[in-house]
């Protein structure tokens, strides 16, 4: 099937995936919420039941509560890794790539990228924070973590600015196509993702979240 005008060419490599829409995204977010509830509730029920049945079972109860806490935390941790920085290239290529990236974004985005390694990009699905190996889609109270990256040219590694620029250009040309090609690593409460991000990147999430709240 020929690609629709303006659609990302990379969609051909994931032809089996339905194109992401705001409605499909909401459904997938709800599914993540249900999955989290399904992991948490049984352990909490076990924890309460054990203590009610016998106070001696308190250690087992605490272990169950720990599971209820840890499993969603591990999912969130996996999601937060999409913003990780990859091994940088040599200084020269890094400088050149950051110059090109700087030409693609405005002053505020350049400044945020310099501090956090993430570039904010408003979209129809929410506000994106684009990194080298993925992007966060920030909603009012929820963050979705997308794992996606540029393929390296033969025999060379792209510098960090180029990695971000690749994702940014793809996102700007076809946001829904971008969300179709990318893999959704996690979707959940903003606070869950925030506490798993490196400290410097939390500022980017806070800045974008503040804007989302103001515009809501």
């Amino acid at each position, binding site marked *: 099937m020929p690609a629709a005008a303006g659609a990302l060419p990379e969609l051909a490599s994931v032809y089996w995936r339905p194109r992401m829409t705001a409605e499909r995204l909401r459904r997938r977010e709800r599914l993540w919420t249900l999955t989290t509830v399904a992991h948490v509730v049984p352990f909490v029920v076990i924890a309460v039941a054990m203590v009610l049945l016998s106070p001696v079972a308190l250690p087992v109860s605490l272990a169950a509560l720990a599971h209820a806490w840890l499993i969603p935390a591990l999912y969130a941790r996996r999601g937060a890794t999409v913003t990780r920085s990859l091994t940088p290239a040599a200084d020269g290529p890094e400088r050149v790539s950051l110059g090109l990236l700087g030409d693609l974004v405005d002053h505020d985005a350049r400044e945020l990228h310099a501090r956090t390694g993430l570039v904010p990009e408003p979209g129809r699905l929410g506000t994106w924070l684009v990194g080298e190996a993925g992007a966060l889609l920030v909603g009012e109270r929820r963050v979705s973590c997308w794992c996606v990256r*540029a393929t390296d040219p033969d025999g060379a590694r792209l510098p960090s600015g180029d990695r971000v620029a690749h994702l940014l250009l793809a996102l700007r040309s076809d946001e829904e196509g971008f969300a179709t090609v*990318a893999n959704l690593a996690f979707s959940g409460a903003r606070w869950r993702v925030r506490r798993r991000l490196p400290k410097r990147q939390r500022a980017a999430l806070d800045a974008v979240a503040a804007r989302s709240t103001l515009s809501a």
Partner: protein
Amino acid sequence: MSRLIRMDGSGHTTLAEWTTDDPASVEAAVAAFREELDQGSIAMVTRGPGHAEHVRELPLDEQLVIMRRPIAGG
């Protein structure tokens, strides 16, 4: 002067520069553009803040055309 650049391991490489009143430079730029497409690159032009467009032919009136590699879910 318009430029065709490719994002690569060096940051970026200028593949061609052209002006529409210089047919030889246009021809060289079109050839470089097609060669990049044949190697699997994707051509992009920016369309103001927050917008970019994938192009399949070299837009001669654009100041900057950027070739990028495909992206894929990790």
